[in-house]
């Protein structure tokens, strides 16, 4: 009854498929932004007569205060926002997985250091720490944003991976591999990582959901991606000045952020359900 793997169960889940499709569409839109965008996102064709136009067939999402096409800015902004988010997510997941795995497999002082670090850092509110750092060093390039956001986000992944690894290390199939003389490296790559991959997937989806609003928040308060380079956060920031007169400047970027974060959260949730489905006894 529990024959299917976690990934197969996820694929058979309608909600997960929808969330995956939304996320996929956003990623494709970001990748092909230069071809999809009808206008140059930074060009200001006529700051007087084309300023703050409501959505029309030519400008499906209207124009902003500098007469730039909002759709084109959102598409290009997706490249920056998703790029930073994906980079930061990848960094935090790789860092978290590596440190969590080493802590579990090596144990001893490595475990003590990693666990201690996690316990201390996890108590700090992430947004405040990031804002404090940015405030000290000034506004950051996307590359630094990735390092900063990613470097501060590995804690939960490390904790999950450490706990899961420790659990699997005690299971008979890992003991059998050790009795056969398997090296630590082999046990990690052949047995433990495939076993824990779904949980890492959940951590990654949650990290993505956390990182997109974080980048947006930083850009929103002017500490993240700097204009004229568009990101979802600074497009939203520009829009809030005209909240009462030009709704499209706020509604569309908010929708983009909400859809992407929502899809990531749904995916994380469905993956968790798929994992639990495999642990039920047949």
């Amino acid at each position, binding site marked *: 009854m529990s024959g299917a793997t976690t990934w197969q169960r996820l694929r058979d889940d309608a909600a997960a498929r929808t969330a995956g499709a939304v996320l996929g569409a956003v990623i494709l839109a970001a990748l092909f932004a230069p071809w999809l965008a009808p206008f140059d996102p930074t060009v200001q064709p006529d700051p007087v007569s084309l300023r703050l136009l409501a959505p029309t067939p030519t400008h499906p999402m209207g124009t902003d205060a500098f007469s730039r096409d909002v759709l084109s800015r959102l598409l290009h902004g997706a490249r920056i926002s998703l790029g930073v988010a994906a980079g930061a997510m990848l960094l935090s997941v790789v860092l978290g997985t590596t440190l969590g795995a080493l802590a579990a497999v090596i144990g001893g002082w490595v475990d003590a250091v990693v666990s201690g670090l996690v316990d201390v850092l996890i108590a700090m509110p992430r947004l405040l720490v990031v804002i404090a750092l940015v405030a000290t060093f000034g506004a950051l390039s996307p590359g630094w944003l990735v390092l900063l956001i990613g470097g501060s986000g590995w804690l939960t992944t490390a904790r999950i991976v450490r706990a899961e690894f420790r659990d699997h290390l005690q299971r008979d*199939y890992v*003991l059998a591999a050790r009795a*056969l*003389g398997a090296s630590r490296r082999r046990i990690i790559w*052949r047995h433990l990582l495939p076993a824990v991959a779904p949980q890492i997937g959940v951590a990654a989806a949650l990290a993505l959901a956390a990182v997109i609003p974080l980048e947006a928040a930083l850009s929103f308060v002017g500490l993240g991606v700097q204009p004229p380079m568009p990101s979802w956060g600074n497009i939203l920031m520009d829009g809030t000045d005209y909240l009462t007169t030009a709704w499209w400047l706020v509604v569309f970027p908010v929708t983009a952020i909400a859809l992407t974060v929502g899809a990531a959260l749904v995916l994380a949730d469905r993956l968790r359900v798929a994992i639990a489905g495999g642990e039920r006894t047949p």
Partner: protein
Amino acid sequence: MTALLELRHLTVEYAARDRRAPAVDDLSLAISRGETLALVGESGCGKTSVGRAILRLLEPTAGSILFDGEDVRTMRGDVLQRFRRRAQVVFQDPNASLDPRMRIGEIVREGIDIHALMPRPKAELRVAHLLEEVGLPASTAARFPHECSGGERQRIAIARALAVEPEFLILDEAVSALDVLVRQQVLQLLATLQSRRKLTYLFIAHDLAVVERVATRVAVMHRGRLVECAPTRQLFSAPAADATRALLAAIPRIPWETRASGEGR
């Protein structure tokens, strides 16, 4: 009679919250080549810790484990890898002892791969032979553990252990989770393999009724200590220790011939 394995004053302690709890307490025992020594006791008596200490899956606190004259505890590098090929294990729960994400072929091949015993095409042929030797069709290699029954999985675990050509096999409650019919078939298989491959078995079990059919000698553990070790027949007819008598009493008394023997078994 030469001992293949000799345990001298083996002690295993677990660090419990505030004190050191001995799981195995000063245990000395020798296993001769070709015999089946059963190690029995209630759960928690330390018998599983003995098996794991022999395989270096846990670190004993004191004592020595001599395998063919060499101390397993001090083995390093190549010497340890050679020992890993000579001593293998089959665990109790075939659901837990096979990696659910690997195909049977990969599982059985793992030891061959680890020790780089032969190139891939030859290894696959070897896997097919091993599967047939344990009574499974070679086509099983393409399946996943969840597509096999409990008895098949235990045969697979045996094939995996045999792949590195061991001479010593620890059977850690290897038939306890199996249904009586399947248990009998697996015991039969183990007996065949033992005579064909000249294997030495350490048969860890909690059930004396199973042990009676397979063991040459029986060692009884109670609270980490060895309380009795005797040839099987003798242990059953004249148990010396209280723990042994308790285990014997736990065997269900099936009323075979009621008129002839009454209550006795």
